[in-house]
C-alpha cells in the first residue's frame, strides 16, 4: 500500500484524548460590566464569583477548568492587597492561587488586575454514572478593598482518556 494511502487512512482512525463537552459561565465579558461590582470578602470569608456544571459520563474522563477574573482594589496610599482564589468541586477545594494587587502611589489610587486559574480535575466522579459535577470559583481578600466588576469567565471542558 502506498505511503500516502497509509497517511490518508490515518486521518480516519479514531482519535483519543478528545474534547467532548464544553460548558461555560461568563456573567461578565467586559471590565466594569458588573455594576455594582462584587465585593470580595475578607478572610475567613469567601465570595462566590461564578459556577459551572458538567455531566460526566466516564470515570476516566478529565475536566479541564479555566477561570479568568478581573479584580480592582482601592488604595489610600502605597501598599498591597492579596486575593486568594479557589476552585471547588462541590464543597471540596481542588485548586488555589493568589494574586497581589500593588499601588506604588502615595496618593489614593484604584488599581485593576487580571488573574487566571487553570486546573485539571481527574477525580471528578465516583459511583454511578452519569454524574453532574458543579465547579465554583470563589475569592477572598486580606483587606476589604477589592471588588470584581468583570470580566468573569469559568469554563469546564471534558476530555476523554488517552487509552
Amino acid at each position, binding site marked *: 500500500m502506498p*505511503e*500516502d494511502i*497509509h*497517511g*490518508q487512512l*490515518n*486521518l*480516519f482512525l*479514531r*482519535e*483519543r*484524548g*478528545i*474534547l*467532548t*463537552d464544553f460548558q461555560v459561565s461568563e456573567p461578565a465579558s467586559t471590565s466594569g460590566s458588573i455594576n455594582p461590582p462584587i465585593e470580595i470578602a475578607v478572610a475567613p470569608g469567601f465570595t462566590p464569583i461564578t459556577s459551572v456544571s458538567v455531566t460526566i*459520563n466516564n470515570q476516566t474522563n*478529565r475536566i*479541564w477548568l*479555566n477561570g479568568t477574573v478581573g479584580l480592582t482594589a482601592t488604595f489610600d496610599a*502605597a*501598599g*498591597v492587597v*492579596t486575593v486568594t482564589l479557589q476552585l471547588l468541586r462541590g464543597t471540596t*477545594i*481542588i*485548586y*488555589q*492561587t*493568589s*494574586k*497581589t494587587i*500593588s*499601588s*506604588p*502611589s502615595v496618593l489614593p489610587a484604584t488599581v485593576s488586575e487580571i*488573574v*487566571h*486559574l*487553570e*486546573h*485539571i480535575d481527574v477525580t471528578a466522579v465516583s459511583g454511578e454514572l452519569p454524574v453532574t459535577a458543579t465547579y465554583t470559583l470563589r475569592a477572598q481578600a486580606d483587606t476589604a478593598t477589592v471588588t470584581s466588576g468583570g470580566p468573569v469567565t469559568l469554563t469546564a471542558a471534558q*476530555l476523554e482518556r*488517552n487509552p
Partner: protein
Amino acid sequence: MTQNSQSRGIVIPRQDRLTEFQFNEPISTPIADAIPLTNSTLAEATINIDDNNDKVYITATVGWFNAFAAAGVVAATFTLSRNGIPIASVVQTVSNATATEVDVFNVARIIFVDQPLPEIIPSQSSFIHGNVQVTYTLTADASDPTAATTGPITLTLSTIERNLL
C-alpha cells in the same frame, strides 16, 4: 458529530479538533515548602503527534511570589521548551513600593501554539507515517533567589488536528 457516534466506533474524519490531551499539574493547592524559581523545571508533559500538519496547543499557568524585605522589583522568566529547545517565554514582575516586609504574589500564564515541529518531523510528505512523541517542558528563572513558587503549576498539551477544508 457526537460523542455517541465516537463511542459506537463510527469512522469520522477529524479536523480542527482538540485531541490527545495531556497534562502535568504537580501542584494544584499551595504546598508548605517553596520551590525557588532560579533555574527551575516546573512541569513536563509528552504528547503524541501523528500528522505533521497538526499543531500543538500549549497552556501553562504558574502561581509565584517574592518575599520582599524592602521596596523593590523582582522579575521571573517562564519558558516553554520542545524537546529541550526554547520555543516561547514570558517575563513577569512583582513589586513592593514600601519598606514593609511583604510577600507579593502573581500568576504567570502562557498560551502558545506550536507548529510545524520541523526539527523532529522532517518528512517532506503531507503525512507522518507513525507517531512521534514530543516532550514539552516548563521552566523558570528569576532575577532574585527569593522568587519562588508554592504552586499552583499547570501545563497542558492538546493536538489541534489540521483543517481538511
